[in-house]
């Protein structure tokens, strides 16, 4: 469902994430003995890289441009091609829905990213303690990631429903005054989305952090231990600084998750109670497909894309800067 609503965002991220993935794929591999082998070795990365890149560029860039174009036209049910300037942008920006959606996005985005990062890091550190059945725990924590957001949303909708879920259960234990009705409280409903989102994504953050922690060289640990540092100090002063880049990666991935959240809200609260949990993606979908206002929907989609760029551009700038620095320091 979410895919049609935001044809821009998903593929765009796939494309954006690709250079990073491709960089690892293109790492120099051991040279083949025969010459032709080396030749294939050199060609393979290109074969792997270019076709998907071209498809993505065609898809993403052309449809992004098309949507941007539509956003400047008076299109309603079908695309029309008269120019009306920024009228669509003005009316979207002035609408109550958009304002509610953006303030919700700020609350949800901050809550989701910070909590997921914190919880993911905590889980990673705990799992790092050479515990028994580590694989089992890792799988359990990662599992929510394998569940689609729609399922997460539906499950949490029942868990958080005060009449049948957690509140009902705790009251059943005898604590009659217990209240946990955020889902139907319009002030708190947005936080239920944070809860469900954190539950879903923290295992993923954990996996990334764990990989980072494990990649820290053993010598550093030993040196710190010899210097008499306790475990807390070792994590704080040695390990965390070493995995700085992982932090950036986690933050960026989570932020773009947050911005394009659609199905979770749709399944969990449907944007309600009232308009209390409206997010920009829902507004785009609503404008385009429910209200039949393609032009305004496209304008909203373009603004959503711009907010993604706000997240991604600093990251790219940082990545470039780091690369240069590394090149300088050899």
């Amino acid at each position: 469902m979410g895919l049609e609503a935001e044809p821009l965002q998903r593929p765009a991220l796939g494309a954006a994430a690709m250079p990073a993935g491709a960089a690892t794929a293109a790492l120099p591999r051991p040279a083949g003995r025969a010459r032709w082998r080396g030749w294939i070795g050199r060609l393979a990365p290109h074969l792997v890289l270019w076709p998907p890149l071209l498809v993505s560029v065609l898809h993403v860039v052309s449809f992004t441009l098309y949507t941007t174009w539509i956003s400047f036209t008076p299109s309603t049910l079908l695309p029309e091609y008269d120019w009306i300037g920024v009228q669509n942008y003005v009316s979207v920006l002035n609408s109550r829905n958009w304002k509610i959606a953006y303030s919700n996005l700020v609350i949800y985005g901050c809550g989701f990213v910070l909590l997921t990062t914190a919880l993911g890091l905590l889980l990673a550190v705990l799992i790092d303690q050479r515990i028994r059945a580590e694989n089992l725990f890792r799988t359990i924590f990662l599992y929510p990631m394998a569940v689609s957001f729609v399922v997460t949303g539906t499950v949490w909708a029942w868990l958080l429903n005060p009449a049948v879920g957690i509140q009902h259960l705790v009251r059943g234990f005898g604590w009659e005054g217990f209240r946990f009705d955020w889902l139907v409280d319009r002030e708190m409903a947005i936080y239920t989305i944070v809860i469900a989102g954190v539950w879903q994504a923290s295992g993923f953050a954990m996996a990334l952090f764990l990989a980072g922690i494990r990649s820290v060289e053993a010598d550093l640990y030993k040196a710190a231990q010899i210097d008499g540092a306790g475990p807390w100090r070792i994590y704080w002063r040695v390990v965390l600084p070493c995995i700085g880049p992982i932090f950036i990666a986690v933050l960026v991935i989570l932020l773009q998750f947050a911005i394009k959240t659609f199905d979770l809200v749709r399944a969990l609260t449907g944007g309600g109670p009232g308009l209390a949990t409206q997010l920009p993606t829902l507004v785009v979908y609503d404008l385009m497909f429910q209200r039949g206002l393609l032009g305004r929907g496209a304008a909203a989609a373009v603004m959503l894309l711009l907010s993604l760029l706000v997240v991604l551009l600093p990251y790219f700038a940082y990545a470039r800067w780091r690369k240069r620095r590394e090149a300088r320091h050899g």
Partner: protein
Amino acid sequence: MFTIDRRGLVAGVATLLAAPRLARAQGSVKPRLTLISQWSAGSDGAAITSLGRVFEQEGGVWQHSPVPGFTTEMMNKLRADILAGNPPAASQLKGPEIAAWSRIAPTVDLTEEVKAAGYEEVVAPDLAKLHKPQGKWIALPLQIYRTNTLFASSKAMAKVGATELPKTWEEFNTLAGKMKAAGITPVANGGIRWDDGMKFEIALAGISPAAYRKAIMELDDDTLRGPEVLAAFQQLRRFADWMDPAVAGQHYSVFLPRFIKGEMGMLMMGGWAQGVIRHNGFDAGDYMIGQAPVDNGKPCFVLNADAFIFWRSKEPDLQAGQKLFANLVMSKRVQEMYSKITGSIPVRTDMDLSGESWSEGQREASRSLNESVRENQAVLSLAHNMAQSNQLSAAMIDVLTEFVHNKSVTPEQGRQRLAEAVESAR
């Protein structure tokens, strides 16, 4: 459910034998119909399948592509087909969207067929208007539901000693107060957007059908800012206070068992809820059904109707199929078969519903429609996109659903926001 299906089928087949063979008149081409609708399951699916069978028995080729799920999915399919230059011969569409969509692709002029069938005289005038946007019939209504229908749980009514449905909002409020005192949640509610919007339309139509017509259908600014709309918001706030606070964002049908058990007292829902209640295994004795309160004592009918729009086609077999289909949709026998399966009432106001396979609820609603048309108190539903275009309806329902769930908004503020939403969406 199944017995109804079979009954509907038997009725369809029986009337078929007696009916003139329309297909023969179409000449040599075999009539064919391509159709898009969202009806694939439940009673809707059964009804459209039966209609297809009648079409086939009349010698036609039936090509129905259901697009289940949200209405928007179906609209996307329709949009794609129109963009590709290949619209279906007919598709499900309703309300003012018929006029909006007819502007983007050529439609079929059915005025001749409608005249020949004498159909216009038997359709409620406001409803007829929606289906002939430029004075030409391009779409045909299929079935009607009344949205201002009040269901009362028999158990809850017995508990407070009530024997009759309330006739006015004052009676309603007294009864709801009694239920509340008896530990019953007076208003059964789901809490989805259209559900919230419907509560408002039921309140306003009951307070003053004339104000409803002016404010909601004609968007008259003075009426939108007038006392009746304020009274409707006040009544909507009372509803909200009487709902289960633990309910939000769920479909009303989730709570039907609690309603039948008597934990919830009254349900304001369209006539289709009868079918859903029956589907849940409860019977007509479990609830009382009738018109929602109307303060002026005369019947008022808030109308929701499904319809088909006919898209122009060059192929002769499709054109013949459209003619055949149009005549079937307008015919008494198809409307009877269809409504018996879905629990709606027929569009035609000249049908006899005294037969035993009609339910008491259907008879009452049909009577009410006829009288409301006579009294000029038949109005079009806002929450079901009959009164305004989707864009305007959505903007108005935004205000209503927020009002229901945000008790810090006063009725005065609600009224003002509604008028402003109309202004900015226009």
